[in-house]
C-alpha cells in the first residue's frame, strides 16, 4: 500500500483508534480521555492538511479493497470530498474542545466520547467514499454511531427520541440500500466520476433510472431532513448541545445533503439528471422544505427547537442549489455546505452556553442576556445575521450564488423562495437579537455567578468565537484563494461537461 492510499486510511484511523481506546478509559481519568480526544482531533487536522496539500500538488489519492464480486470499497479524495473532509475535521476539532468543557463532571463521558469519535469516523468515511457502496456503508455506520449520542441522557424522553431517530434513519437507509443495489445490478460498479457515471449510458431505461433516483433521494432526504422526512430532527434535540451542534452542522444532516450532491453530480451527472426531468421535483421539495422550516421556526419558543427548524430550512439550500441545473447555482449549493456548517454550529454552541452557564432554554428568557454574555451573543449575532443573509457574512455569499444561478438558469421562482425565506429568517432571528441586546435583563439567571474569569468556561467560549470568525472571514474574503467559495468554483467547473 502506497503512502497515498495509506493516508486515507490513516485519516479514518485518527478518530477510530482514539474512539475505541476511549471506551476503555476509566470514567475518572479525565486527563487521559481529553488527551486522546485532542490528540486524535489534532492528528486528523494534520493528516487532512497533508491530503489537501497533496491534491493541490496534483497527486491522486485512492485506495481499494475488494468486498464482493465487482464491488470494491473505495476511498478517494476529489475536490468535493476534500471540502467535506476539511469542514468535518475542523469542526470536529472545535466541537471536541467544546464537548470536553460542556460535559465536565457529567456521568458516562467515556461512552459519550467513544461514540462521538466513531461518529466523526463515519462522517469522514462518507466524505472520502469513492463509490455509492462505500458511501452506503459509512452512511449506515453514522446512524449506528449517533444513536447512543441521541439517547445519551437516558431519560424517557431521550429514549423516545432515539426510537424516532432510528425509525426514520433506518427506514431511509433501507430505501437507499434498495436504490444502490438496483443501480449496481443495472449499471455495474458506481465509482463517483465528475459529470456522472450514468450520463452517456443510453442502454438504461430512463423510467427505471427515475425510480432509482427517487429511492436514493428519499433515502438521503431522511438525513437531510427534507419535508416530509424531517420528523426526527426536532425530536432529537433532547441530546446534549455538542451533539446537536455536530448532528446539525456536520455529521447527520450534512451527510444527507452531501449524498444528494454526490448522487446528482457524480452518479447521474447534473445535465443527465436534468434531461431525465428529476431535478425540478427535487428543487420543489427543497423549496417547500425551506419555507416550511422557517415558518415552523417562527412559533418555537425553545431556543434549540427554533434552531432545529432553522436547520431543516437552511440545509435544503444545499439541495436547492444542487437541483438547479446551472454552474452558478451549483457553486451556491456546494459552498453552503461549508457556510451553513460554520454558522449553525456557532448558533448551537451559543445555545449550549446559555443553557449551561445561565440555565436559559427559551427565547422568552433571553431578555438582556447580551450584557451578561457579550462575547457569546456577539458570536450568535454574527451567525444569525449570516443565516438571514446579511453581507458580508458567509450566508450572503451562498444566497447570492443560488439566486443569480437560478436567474441564469431561467428559474426565477427560486428568487421568490429566497426572499420569502430570508424574510422569515429575519422574523425569527431578529427578535432574539433584539431581546438579547436591547431589553433590560429579567429572569432568574441574573443571580448566577460567572464560572471563570471569562463570561463562561473558556472551553465553551472559544469554539463559538472561532467558528463565528470563520463564518465572517469566509464571507469577507470569499474571493481569495483557499476560501470555500473558490473551492466550490473548482468543483463546479469539473461537474459541467465542456
Amino acid at each position, binding site marked *: 500500500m502506497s503512502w497515498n492510499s495509506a493516508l486515507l486510511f490513516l485519516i479514518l484511523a485518527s478518530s477510530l483508534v482514539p474512539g475505541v481506546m476511549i471506551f476503555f478509559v476509566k470514567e475518572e481519568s479525565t486527563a487521559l480521555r481529553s488527551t486522546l480526544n485532542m490528540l486524535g482531533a489534532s492528528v486528523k487536522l494534520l493528516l487532512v492538511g497533508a491530503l489537501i496539500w497533496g491534491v493541490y500538488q496534483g497527486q491522486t489519492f485512492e485506495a481499494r479493497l*475488494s*468486498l*464482493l464480486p465487482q464491488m470494491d470499497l473505495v476511498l478517494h479524495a476529489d475536490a468535493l470530498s476534500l471540502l467535506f473532509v476539511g469542514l468535518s475535521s475542523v469542526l470536529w476539532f472545535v466541537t471536541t474542545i467544546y464537548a470536553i468543557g460542556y460535559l465536565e463532571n457529567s456521568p458516562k463521558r467515556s461512552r459519550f466520547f467513544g461514540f462521538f469519535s466513531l461518529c466523526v469516523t463515519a462522517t469522514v468515511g462518507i466524505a472520502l467514499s469513492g463509490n455509492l457502496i462505500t458511501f452506503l*456503508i459509512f452512511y449506515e455506520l453514522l446512524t449506528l454511531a449517533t444513536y*447512543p449520542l441521541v439517547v445519551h441522557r437516558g431519560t424517557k424522553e*431521550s429514549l423516545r427520541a432515539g426510537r424516532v431517530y432510528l425509525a426514520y434513519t433506518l427506514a431511509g437507509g433501507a430505501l437507499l440500500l434498495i436504490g444502490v443495489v438496483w443501480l449496481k445490478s443495472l449499471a455495474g460498479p458506481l465509482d463517483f466520476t465528475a459529470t456522472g457515471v450514468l450520463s452517456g449510458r443510453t442502454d438504461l431505461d430512463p423510467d427505471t433510472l427515475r425510480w432509482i433516483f427517487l429511492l436514493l433521494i428519499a433515502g438521503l432526504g431522511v438525513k437531510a431532513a427534507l419535508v416530509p422526512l424531517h420528523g426526527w430532527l426536532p425530536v432529537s434535540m433532547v441530546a446534549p448541545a455538542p451533539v446537536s451542534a455536530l448532528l446539525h452542522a456536520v455529521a447527520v444532516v450534512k451527510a444527507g445533503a452531501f449524498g444528494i450532491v454526490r448522487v446528482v453530480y457524480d452518479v447521474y451527472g447534473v445535465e443527465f439528471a436534468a434531461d431525465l426531468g428529476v431535478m425540478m421535483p427535487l428543487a420543489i421539495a427543497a423549496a417547500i422544505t425551506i419555507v416550511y422550516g422557517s415558518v415552523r421556526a417562527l412559533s418555537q419558543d425553545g431556543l434549540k427547537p427554533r434552531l432545529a427548524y432553522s436547520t431543516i430550512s437552511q440545509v435544503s439550500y444545499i439541495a436547492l442549489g444542487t437541483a438547479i441545473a446551472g454552474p452558478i447555482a451549483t457553486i451556491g449549493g456546494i459552498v453552503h455546505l461549508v457556510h451553513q456548517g460554520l454558522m449553525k454550529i456557532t448558533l448551537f454552541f451559543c445555545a449550549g452556553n446559555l443553557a449551561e452557564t445561565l440555565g436559559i432554554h427559551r427565547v422568552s428568557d433571553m431578555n438582556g442576556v447580551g450584557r451578561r454574555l457579550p462575547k457569546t451573543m456577539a458570536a450568535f449575532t454574527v451567525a444569525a445575521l449570516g443565516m438571514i443573509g446579511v453581507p458580508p457574512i458567509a450566508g450572503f455569499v451562498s444566497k447570492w450564488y443560488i439566486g443569480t444561478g437560478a436567474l441564469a438558469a431561467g428559474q426565477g421562482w427560486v428568487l421568490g423562495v429566497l426572499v420569502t425565506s430570508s424574510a422569515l429568517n429575519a422574523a425569527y432571528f431578529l427578535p432574539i437579537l433584539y431581546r438579547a441586546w436591547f431589553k433590560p435583563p429579567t429572569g432568574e439567571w441574573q443571580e448566577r455567578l460567572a464560572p471563570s474569569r471569562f463570561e463562561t468556561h473558556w472551553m465553551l467560549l472559544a469554539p463559538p468565537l472561532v467558528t463565528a470568525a470563520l463564518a465572517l472571514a469566509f464571507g469577507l474574503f470569499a474571493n481569495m484563494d483557499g476560501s470555500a467559495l473558490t473551492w466550490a468554483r473548482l468543483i463546479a467547473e469539473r461537474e459541467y461537461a465542456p
Partner: protein
Amino acid sequence: MTPLWSALCVVAPLLAAVTQCIKPRWGAATSIAALSLIVLGGLGLASALIESGAQTIVLSGWSPPLGIVWRIDGLTVTMILMAGIVGLPVSVYAHHYFSSSTTANRFFWPLWMLLLAALCSLFLSNDLFNWYVTLELLSLSAVALVTLAGKPAALAAAQRYLYASLLGSLCYLMGVALIYSTYGSLDMTLLRAATEPNTSVWVAIGLMMAGLLMKSAMFPLHFWLPSAHGAAPAPVSAILSALVVKGAFYILLRIWFDLVPEAPPHSVTLLLGAFGAAAILWGSLQALRATRLKMLVAYSTVAQLGYLALFFPLSATGELGQTAIGGIVYFMAAHACAKAAMFLAAGNLQRAAGHDQLSALASTAQALPLSMFAFAIAGVSIMGLPPSGGFVAKWMLLSAAIMNGAWLWVAVLILGGLLSAAYVFRVLALSFVDPGPPAEQEAPKRVARSSEWASLMLAGMALLLGLNAMPMLELMSVGLPAIRP
C-alpha cells in the same frame, strides 16, 4: 491428505467424547483440542479444494451403490469451518458456565462432542441414509443438551423438541425409502444422474423436505424452537441456534441441488418463500413482544431462518443462482456467528442478574459493557447493516431478488431488516436507560472475563465476515453443483 483432514473432523470429537467419559475433568481441554483439530482439518480441506477442486473419498474401498462415499466441496468445508470456529468460543464460555453444577458439566462435554461429530459427518456425507443417521444422532444429542438446564420448563421443552424431531426424521426416512425402492441407490451423485421428474420422486422429495423443514424449524413448523432454545443453558442455546438447525438445512440444500430433477413449479417455490416471509414477520413480532431476553433471541432465530427459505424462490440457474446460493451460505455463516454471540451475551446478562426479564435488566446491562457491545455488534449483523457478514448476505440476496424482478421478496428482505432492528434496539436501549438510584438495585454478580470475551469474539467474527467476502465466496463456490434447469 484429503482423507486425513476429513477423518480428523469426525474422529477428533469422537475421541474427545470417549476421553471425557473416562476423565470428566478434562472436558473443556479435550473439547477445545478437538475443535482446534476440526478447524485445522477444515483449513486443510480448504487448501486442498482450492488446489484441485471438489473431492470424493470412498470409505474403506467400497464404491457406491454398495459402499459409502464422502464428497467434499466448498459448501462442505464452509460448514465445517463454521462449526469449528463457532464451537471454540462457545467451549471456552461453557467451561465457566458449567463449572459450578457438576452433573451438567459432566454430561455437557461428551454430548457436545458427539453432536459435533454427528454434524461434521453430516456435512461430509453424500448419501441419503447417512444423512438420516447423522441427523438422528445430531437431534438426540441436542435434545439431551437441552435437558441439562434441569428445570421443569426445560424438560418440557426438550420433550417437545424430541417429538418434533422424531416426527421430522420419520417423514424424512419415508422419503428416503421411497427413493431407494425406486432407484436402488442412496448416493447423491448416482441419484443426480438417475432421477427423472415423476410422481414418486416428487412425493419422496416432498416427504424429505417436510421432515427437514420441521427439523430446521421453518415456519409453520417452528413451534418447538423458541421454548427449547430459550430454556436451554446459554452455551447450548448458542449451539442449537448457530449450528444444529443449519445441519438440517444443509441437507435441504443438497436435495435441492442434486435430487430435484427439474425446476420445480412456481407455486411450490412461492409457497416455500411465503413460509419464509411469514417466519420473518411472525418471529420478529414475537421477538418484539418477548418479555425475556433469551426468548427474544430465540424468536429472532425463527425470523432469521425465514431468510433461508427465501432461497427457494430466488434460486435459479446461471449467475443469478450463484448470487442467491452465495447469499444463503454466507447468511448461514454470518447468522451462526452473530446468533451464538447473542446467546452467549444474553447468558452473561442472565448470569449476572439472576434472571433475564428485559424490564429489569438495565443496571446489569450497564455493569457488563463488553457483553452489551458483543450483543450490539452481533445485532448489526442480524439487522443486515454494514459492515458485517449479515450485510454481505443481505446484499447478495437483494441483488438476486432485484435482478429477478421479484419485488415481493425485496420488500420482505427490507421489512425483515427493519423489524430486526426494532427488536435488537429494544435490548440495546437497556445500555442507555437511566437505571435509577443504585441502592435499590441488587448488585450484579460477577461474570468471568473470558465469558464476556467469548461473546465478543463471535460478534467480531460476524463483523469480519463483512470486511472481505471474496475469499469466503470463492471457497464456497468450489465444486458446487449447478441447479438443474
